[in-house]
């Protein structure tokens, strides 16, 4: 099967800054693909290369098997939902959505009917005559989405589309986007710096750092089996264990990750574990309470269900975890 989007050793440099450095990437047709990373990691540049706003300095990009170097954005059957929506302020909502149809000379009645349909799909039916300025952030986001899907593109690119929305709205939009992608069957490529968003929505995730792809895999892969310190730290706020500590436990001098929820916290002296420490802080997060434990200088985060009895700040505790909860990563000198 031919990939929806394929990047082969793609680099994009801005002067001395390597925004993207030899990135390889395959996105399958119909896939919900997330590009996750901190700001400046190259994920947005990657999106702009696929859309055609940037040209690679090296490497090849293919969209459904066709080479697109030198192909301008307006000749790519790829549409983008922009971070700040980029709605045309001089057009009403209906004409915004129908913009691409207008360019393809679809007759007025027909394009307005199709635009109404797209608005219906994002649950904004009846808003056609309003101006973008009269809409709330969430509504604008939906208009941008409708405008991008009305043309049934081969690939839909989403550049942090939920970044400006408040938490509640973001969560409901996440579900809607997922459902919409199922309905349309279009390949979605989604850029975000929010790991929770990437894990909950995507079929596969690419974790970016410093212009390179660190790991590509299913959300579970990336969460449970990070390949590097960076991925472990950025995805899922795992504890990153230094090689010396890992050696002490499993006898191998390698970096490792340990998820907070895998740590059992007991009263001091209980159980067979020899690891005792002091609670430095506790924060209440609803279903769980997050503890920061000082273990003779090694600091670990633990997540304890808030239904259990949780030790107070300053208390001595014993901790334990299953040995196979330790996920070994790259080898380390230090």
């Amino acid at each position, binding site marked *: 099967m031919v990939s929806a989007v394929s990047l082969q050793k793609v680099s994009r440099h801005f002067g001395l800054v390597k925004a993207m450095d030899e990135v390889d990437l395959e996105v399958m047709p119909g896939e919900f693909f997330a590009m996750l990373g901190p700001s400046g990691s190259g994920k947005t540049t990657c999106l702009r290369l696929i*859309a*055609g*706003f940037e040209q690679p300095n090296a490497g090849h990009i293919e969209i459904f098997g066709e080479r697109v170097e030198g192909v*301008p*954005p*307006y000749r790519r059957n*790829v*549409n*983008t939902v*922009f971070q*700040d929506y*980029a*709605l*045309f*302020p*001089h057009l009403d909502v209906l004409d915004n959505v129908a*913009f*691409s149809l*207008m*360019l*393809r000379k679809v007759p007025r009645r027909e394009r307005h009917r199709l635009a109404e349909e797209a608005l219906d799909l994002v649950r904004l039916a009846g808003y056609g005559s309003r101006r973008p300025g009269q809409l709330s952030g969430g509504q604008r986001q939906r208009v941008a989405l409708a*405008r*991008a899907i009305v*043309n049934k593109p081969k690939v839909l690119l989403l550049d942090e589309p939920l970044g400006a929305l408040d938490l509640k709205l973001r969560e409901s939009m996440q579900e809607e986007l997922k459902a919409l992608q199922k309905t349309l069957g279009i390949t979605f490529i989604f850029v975000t710096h929010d790991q929770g968003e990437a894990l909950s929505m995507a079929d596969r995730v690419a974790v970016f750092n410093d212009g390179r792809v660190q790991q590509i895999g299913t959300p579970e892969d990336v969460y449970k089996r990070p390949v590097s310190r960076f991925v472990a730290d950025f995805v899922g706020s795992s504890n990153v264990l230094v090689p010396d500590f890992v050696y002490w436990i499993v006898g191998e001098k390698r970096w490792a990750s340990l998820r907070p929820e895998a740590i059992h916290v007991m009263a001091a002296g209980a159980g067979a574990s020899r690891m005792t420490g002091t609670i430095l802080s506790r924060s209440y997060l609803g279903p769980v309470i997050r503890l920061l434990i000082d273990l003779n200088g090694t600091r670990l985060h633990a997540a304890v269900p808030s239904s259990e009895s949780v030790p107070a700040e300053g208390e001595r505790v014993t901790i334990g975890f299953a040995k196979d909860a330790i996920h070994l990563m790259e080898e380390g000198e230090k």
Partner: protein
Amino acid sequence: MSVEAPAVLPNRRGALGGLSDTFWRRPRLLVLLLLIPAALWLGVVYLGSLLALLLQSFFHIDDFSGLVVHELTLRTYAELFKPQNADIILRTLAMAAAVTVASAVLAFPVAYMAARYLRGAWKVVFYLAVTLPLWSSYLVKVYAWKLILAKEGILTWLFGVLHIGPALDWILNLPVIGGNSLSFSFIGTFLVFLYIWLPYMILPIQAAVERVPVNLIDASADLGASPLKTFRHVILPLALPGIVAGSIFTFSLTLGDYIVPQIVGNGRLFIGQVVYTQQGTAGNIPLAAAFTVVPIVIMGVYLWAARKLGAFDAL
């Protein structure tokens, strides 16, 4: 041990500090205070004199005595429709329209380049270059142009050197807009108007284009618009308020000017010159006033039409 600061700091600045507090508590008082000078100036000095002028236009002049008759009548306005006066109005209107369209066409690429591509020091150079002509006296510039356009001037010489003298002759032989030489033709008048009002068109367009977010241009391309279509459907509509603002300057300045056509032109009158002679030597203040109302009405109609056409939708 140091003295702890109080929760509310004392007012140490005396009467002035007290005034600040008052303004803070009653912000409208400050707005009112700031508005009074402007309101006095605009409302009394400017609008007042305009109304006095308007009133004059409803009087008429007695044909025998040459004195102003102070009774309300539309007779003076009727005079505007006499062939020789209507000619003047149409001529001025045509010139103002031509100057406006030409400056918009000339200004847009310059303004667009400056707004999109110039940064830092180059932008300063741009502002200097555009406004530099405004630094010197208007009269000096017009006379300089008279010399440039004269039969013995540099332009005729240049045409000769380039062996395209016949092209100049052809232009000068054009009916109506041609003439004896460029400095005695409507083309000359047009060129000088274009030169002196161009900065007033460039700057508003540049400001308007600068406010068009780059990501709208990206979005347009993303949705399938070639650069030409992006210009037509996104940039032009969004820059239109700037073009209209610029055209208000070029249009109304040309409508009212009485010096340029007097120095460079074929002697046929423009509205400004008529106003100048009627209120001066001819002593016909009512007719001068009626002529003055014409540009005001034209501008009103122009703005109304621009609004109807959606020129301000993007504001």
